[in-house]
């Protein structure tokens, strides 16, 4: 029942900029560095036909086809991260030890359908 919007370049699936500031979540008292990071997120539509620039899986290509035939019964494919990169965080633990921790898959670099 979603309102059908015409697909324009602005609502095509792609990575959007999102800076997460640790102050916003009240974590600045234990995280030493960085103060925040460019996390980004994926948002937008995966319309039929999927162009190469939308990095669709084979399944997503078929799903957009079925969706174009039966929009009520089959949802459009989702827009999701397909390439992520790590970040490192320096923080104090409960014992005041200094900890450096590397996290995989924290920054959304690229999105796809």
């Amino acid at each position: 029942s979603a309102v059908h919007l015409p697909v324009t370049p602005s609502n095509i699936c792609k990575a959007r900029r999102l800076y997460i500031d640790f102050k916003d979540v009240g974590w600045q008292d234990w995280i030493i560095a960085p103060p925040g990071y460019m996390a980004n997120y994926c948002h937008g539509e995966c319309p039929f036909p999927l162009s190469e620039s939308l990095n669709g899986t084979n399944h997503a290509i078929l799903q957009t086809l079925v969706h174009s035939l039966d929009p009520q019964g089959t949802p459009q494919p989702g827009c999701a991260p397909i390439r992520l990169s790590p970040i490192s965080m320096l923080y104090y633990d409960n014992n005041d030890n200094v900890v450096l921790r590397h996290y995989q898959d924290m920054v959304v670099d690229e999105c796809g359908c």
Partner: protein
Amino acid sequence: RNTRERLFLSSLGLSERPQPAGSHRRPVPSELWRMLRRSESIQARDSDPCTVSEYGVRGNIIRYVQDQVSLAHIEEQRGRACLVKQLFFNVSVLQPVELLSLAQLEIRLHWKPLRPAGFLRGPRAVSMSLSKVIRATLRGADPQANRRLLLSRSIRPQLEPAAIAMDLTPLADSWRKPGHNYGLVVELSPPLGVDPDELTPFLPGNAFPLEEAWTLPLIEASLVVVSLNPHQCHSRQRR
């Protein structure tokens, strides 16, 4: 929001939001700043975040575990007074899921600054020994009976802090079992011929003696622990 925060912290490998005491916060070791800066570089973004190249081991967590014992004392051993410093590293901060890759003990000896140059050039060296404590010592018992020697060496006093590093990975791994960690003991003995009455330990808060007493150094120790959380270091799938 609390539930979401807990979920997110759990995905970061943390059981709860850390609450550092704050009053005893020590400065971040320069090595950790260097490693953080290196990981932020563009080249590092394509390298494996689950390998610590500085130590050549697998791991995604590097901790500088603080020594929990701050005081040292003078102990008489075989007629010689020596400075004894107990070390205790709380390795229970590692979560059970973490695989220990490396535990490196780093000891720094800070000598009294501005000693006369003649003293520093002198031939006399301090002997240092490091032992592990294998069980608690009962009052009145000989503490030496419960210590096992790990390292013994001779150190010349110098202007710069002396640094000693030692791999203690198997020992630190054994400390993770409850009731197995009795810590370590560092002993510093002055050269033969030094009158024990002349001995002045350089302890935090002590003023430097003005006279030419024999001053033992301040001992600082930390345990660099590298571990790997396998849940956060999955191998990348081939596309």
